[in-house]
């Protein structure tokens, strides 16, 4: 007698049992897999976005200083950069020029960067891969911009940034500082913000406080703060979607509970037959355990694999917009497949374990009755 053969025999019986009620069990697996698919999709998508966000921020400045005017962002004078550079602990201050440009013809917003040491001419432009594809209003092969004065100016595309950089450069357009000021009307000596590098990361807080003391009209933002904001935004959005899906999940669990707790007369009779034929209560429970596990595990695997394909191969078409938030130009890049083992394990236990156990409980109730009831039911 082998325990393995015994389990195999029970498993064989279970699979044969499931196949004979294939329509009912198939519908159950599909409904269950759909719930797992929805939850797993949100989970994969949120995790991937968070990871992408962290990757992007890893290359971002440790400290960004913006100037505030009447509670709103304003441009920051170059003189601020000089005074901040003199603060002990600051190793570098880089004034930056960047902004957003809404292209009405395309119906999309692009991020525009002005570089003082731009390697090309003032009437030339470098585009990110998604921006290069999206920008369709060309004249004589030049990107047309409407300047702050209302007149048009064209830029000759000289380079498309490589695909590998698309995570950070997808909707990016890069031009010279002169061209940037010309398009947006930004006066000389004024910048969008300052990127500050601190020698010792431990002194970040002290440097931040010094900057605020010296320039009370500024708002220094640490990279960690941005990271926390991203985290909370994704948690919030993911949470909202989860709440919506929780309704579907709840409906399913009520259905599953009803199915699992209410053994049909046919199922109770079958348990009676098995007991009369020499199965003991534990054998019936093992068989029901395999049955619950087979249904819930199949659903979990189907739902999880479908969610993986949906998020990482099909760009999460079903609810990407809800999770990505506002953006007119939808950044066109596939998410890096990132799966958190902890989250996956949690989903496994939340989907497989409850169903398996709620299947076993009613079977236990039926299995502890004397098998002679089957004789009387004859």
């Amino acid at each position, binding site marked *: 007698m082998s325990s393995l053969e015994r389990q195999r025999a029970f498993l064989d019986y279970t699979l*044969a049992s499931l196949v004979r009620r294939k329509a009912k069990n198939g519908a159950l697996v599909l409904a269950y897999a759909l719930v797992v698919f929805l939850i797993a999709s949100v989970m994969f998508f949120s995790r991937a976005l968070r990871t992408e966000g962290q990757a992007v921020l890893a290359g971002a400045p440790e400290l960004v200083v913006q100037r505030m005017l009447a509670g709103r962002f304003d441009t920051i004078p170059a003189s601020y950069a000089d005074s901040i550079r003199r603060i002990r602990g600051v190793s570098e201050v880089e004034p930056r020029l960047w902004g957003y440009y809404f292209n009405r013809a395309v119906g999309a917003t692009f991020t525009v960067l002005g570089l003082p040491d731009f390697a090309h001419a003032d009437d030339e432009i470098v585009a990110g891969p998604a921006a290069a594809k999206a920008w369709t209003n060309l004249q004589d092969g030049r990107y047309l911009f409407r300047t702050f004065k209302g007149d048009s100016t064209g830029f000759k595309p000289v380079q498309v940034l490589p695909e590998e950089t698309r995570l950070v450069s997808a909707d990016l357009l890069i031009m010279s500082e002169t061209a940037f000021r010309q398009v947006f009307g930004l006066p000389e000596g004024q910048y969008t913000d300052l990127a500050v590098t601190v020698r010792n990361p431990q002194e970040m807080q002290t440097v931040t406080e010094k900057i605020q003391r010296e320039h009370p009209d500024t708002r220094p933002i640490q990279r960690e703060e941005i990271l926390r904001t991203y985290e909370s935004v994704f948690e919030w959005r993911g949470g909202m979607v989860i709440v919506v899906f929780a309704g579907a999940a709840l409906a399913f669990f009520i259905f599953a509970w009803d199915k699992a707790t209410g053994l049909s007369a046919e199922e109770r009779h079958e348990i009676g037959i098995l007991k009369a034929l020499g199965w003991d209560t534990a054998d019936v429970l093992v068989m029901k355990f395999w049955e619950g596990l087979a249904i819930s595990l199949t659903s979990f695997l189907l739902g999880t694999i479908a969610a993986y394909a949906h998020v990482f191969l099909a760009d999460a078409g079903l609810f990407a917009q809800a999770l990505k938030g506002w953006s007119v130009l939808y950044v066109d890049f596939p998410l890096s497949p990132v799966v958190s083992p902890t989250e996956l394990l949690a989903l496994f236990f939340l989907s497989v374990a409850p169903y398996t156990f709620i299947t076993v409980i009613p079977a236990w109730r039926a299995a502890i009755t004397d098998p002679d009831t089957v004789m009387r039911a004859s």
Partner: protein
Amino acid sequence: MIRVENVTKVFNPGRPSEYVALRGVSAAVPENKVVVLTGPSGSGKTTLLSLLGCMARPTSGRIHLGEREISSLPERFLAELRRTAFGFIFQSFNLVPGLTTLENVMVPACPLGQPRHQVRDRAAALLEKFRLGGKIGQTVESLSGGEKQRTAIARALINDPPTIIADEPTANLDTALSLEFLEIVGQLRAEGKTFIIASHDAIVHEAQVVDQVISLRDGMVVPAGPHDC
């Protein structure tokens, strides 16, 4: 030898629906014999059959299987006896719908943990023996009454138990099939099996193959008479 001593079985004791099914019944079933329990409906045949087959426990009294007293054994030991010492044939066959003939015959062997191919071969051989070799892959719903009966017999024999317990085995069969069943009983007795059959079918308890008739009325053993059938 299976012996019951002064066995009483009360259902729903202490409730308004209390019902005494057996009252101090004593009887013995010798090895390698065909014993028929007979009596009118409600006489206690099925209850006594359940007690003999370890499917229920008596309220009082003792049941011996050989020298072993089995009436007070825990459920898991009774289950073990049901799968090793007894084979069961039920009135409406109680085959598991949706499963094939072969799968049905293999069901009692599942808890034994024997290699699958051995169980499969044994089940196939039994089905062949009962002229069901060509029906191995068919689901039991497609079988005729006689074929279902023979499948149930094959299932009862899969674990090679010494005793077969049958509850009204001919109730759903016509005369020809009932006689065929009794012929099989005779063959199996010749192979050393003991049969305990509950039946109020005259064909059964008047059959030549029957060695002993235990007649029941109102939960008690009474001398066998023509009105009991």
